């Protein structure tokens, strides 16, 4: 199942005050997925990525957890309109936050609803007997899936109620991880910045640190630039505030894409000349300077022109 598919909402559960979990099923067998994968859910033309919470090995259903933001948008619409027995249009699952199987130890850091992909990783680590530990930061009384996390993680769990507790738990954890550990963090930007800063200070190479943003950062409109499409030889202006992906689509250049927020990695295209300005969340730290590829849904140009391998 890679194209759009309709799944049935088999159950809806109020997980915390503002988080609901949806159990999605199909009459057809559901494709297994890598831990940390997401499903792209579409409603009224809007699409958003939600992490799947099971380990993915032999899924009987796809489970996602959605937090009401109170700011409208797809998450709130799901809370307001989707009921048991209803249908959702989804695509995926897609993997953009996979485990590193050869890691000697896995350290999982979750903040708030960022627990969703971490839960998936934790389940897989337990299934395959991979050494792991978890740091879970949450607001008291609003910790999604806390019981399940406790049951799976057992003694390997550090709970951190509140930002201060989380900051010190992270600071402590990154100082004493066994050689060969990989760290996976999901949460709001501030927490992820804290994690990457702490790791850098403790001498971690960036390749060991894997972060998943559950909210895409708000991006500024960016400066205008031009692209040259190799196959057609056409030169297209990309105005400020308009994404390269939109410009390409309007010109009839088909680019496969999903999330439009720089998270899923689907719209990757090749760059032949010029330097892209990477604004996506897909490229790992070690590849932030890569000039041969870009994600046109959010990324722009660092040079006046880019030549695209399209």
């Amino acid at each position, binding site marked *: 199942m890679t194209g759009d598919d309709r799944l049935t909402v088999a159950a809806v559960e109020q997980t915390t005050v503002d988080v609901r979990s949806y159990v999605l099923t199909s009459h057809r067998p559901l*494709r297994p997925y890598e831990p940390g994968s997401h499903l792209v859910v579409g409603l009224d033309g809007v699409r958003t990525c939600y992490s799947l919470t099971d380990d993915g090995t032999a899924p009987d259903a796809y489970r996602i957890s959605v937090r009401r933001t109170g700011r409208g948008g797809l998450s709130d619409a799901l809370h307001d309109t989707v009921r048991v027995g209803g249908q959702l249009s989804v695509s995926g699952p897609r993997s953009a936050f996979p485990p*590193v199987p050869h890691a000697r130890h896995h350290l999982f850091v979750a903040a708030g609803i960022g627990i969703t992909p971490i839960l998936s990783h934790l389940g897989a680590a337990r299934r395959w007997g991979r050494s792991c530990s978890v740091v879970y930061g949450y607001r008291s009384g609003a910790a999604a899936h806390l019981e399940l996390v406790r049951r799976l993680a057992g003694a390997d769990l550090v709970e951190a109620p509140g930002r201060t507790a989380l900051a010190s738990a992270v600071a402590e954890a990154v100082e004493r991880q066994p050689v060969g550990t990989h760290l996976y963090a999901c949460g709001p930007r501030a927490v992820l910045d804290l994690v990457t800063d702490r790791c850098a200070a403790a001498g971690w190479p960036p390749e060991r640190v894997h972060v998943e943003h559950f909210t895409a950062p708000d991006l500024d409109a960016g400066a205008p630039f031009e692209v040259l499409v190799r196959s057609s030889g056409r030169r297209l202006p990309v105005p400020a505030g308009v994404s390269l992906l939109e410009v390409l689509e309007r010109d009839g250049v088909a680019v496969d894409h999903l999330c439009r927020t720089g998270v899923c990695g689907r719209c990757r295209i090749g760059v032949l000349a010029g330097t892209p300005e990477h604004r996506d969340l897909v490229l790992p730290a070690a590849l932030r300077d890569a000039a041969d590829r870009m994600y046109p849904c959010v990324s722009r140009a660092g040079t006046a022109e880019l030549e695209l391998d399209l």
Partner: protein
Amino acid sequence: MTTAPRTPDTAPSYATPLAELAWPFEPGADTYRYWINVERGRRPVATAAGSWGRHVLEVDGGYPAVMAERTAILDREPRRCSALPHALPAAWEALEFGLAEIAPQRPDLFRLQRGDDGVLRWRNDLLGTRWSARTGDPLVDGAHPLAALAGQVQEDLFLLGPREDRLYVDAVAATFTGSWSSSFSLGMSFADLHSPVPRIRDSGMVDRTERFLLSLDPGDVYRRTNWSIYDSGRLDASLEASHRRDPGHAVRSATEHRYGSLRLRVELQHLVRLPATGALLFLIKTQLAAFADIVTVPQWAGQLRSVLAELPEDMAAYKGFARYRPGLLDWFDL
């Protein structure tokens, strides 16, 4: 030069029916160069003599003989199967994928069942195999899960996993490779693995291929063919077994003008992105056809002659026929 006595070459000769041969040359093309020749799998292709390509793993008429040969090699050289510890989940996914592919092809002989208890049961009446195991067990019927699959299918099996945006060989179960060493390749990067191949290493082809493989979607199945020339019908052309071959054989076949007994060795390769582990399963099915048989198909005879005549010297050397190319071309013209 060899100080140890040579083991006599007793490997049986194998021949793929022409009707099943994955003819590796593009229709109408009379030259051949390396390129990233990949296409989606599971689609049959018609050739001048038949068709191929319906299945990803295929149980064909050669199955009993090929499996007997594989078992003999694995009994003698268990190091043909090896795996890094972290490859267990991917090996299990490969095992379940592979058995599910072949089970429906011979429902009279194979039986794959997943019980409500989560136990997987496999039965192969042709080989007399019968086992049950749980997903994740370190051993299946006494073997690593990838080796357990190799014991049931004709294909050579490789698992590759991504690390920092590059692919590495994480597990190997192979008995019929061309003249390279699969047991040496465990743990190697995709790029290093290909470094002995002329032309592709400096052309950027390896990097582009690797990027293609890394971008495959979960569940994607692609395939490609590769070919070389070989002097006998033995399936195991590996470097592991090269001391078993009679070193004068190729030269003699050529000098005695036995060109008709040379074989076209075709590798039908499949690439599968396993969805639950993200690992890449690489499958090679080796096919062998004697030149004497190939030339009975007129289109093939003409095309093969043109390709062999035109192929640049470095590629001809790599493919194994540069030393006797002139005589071989004359033979086509007889």
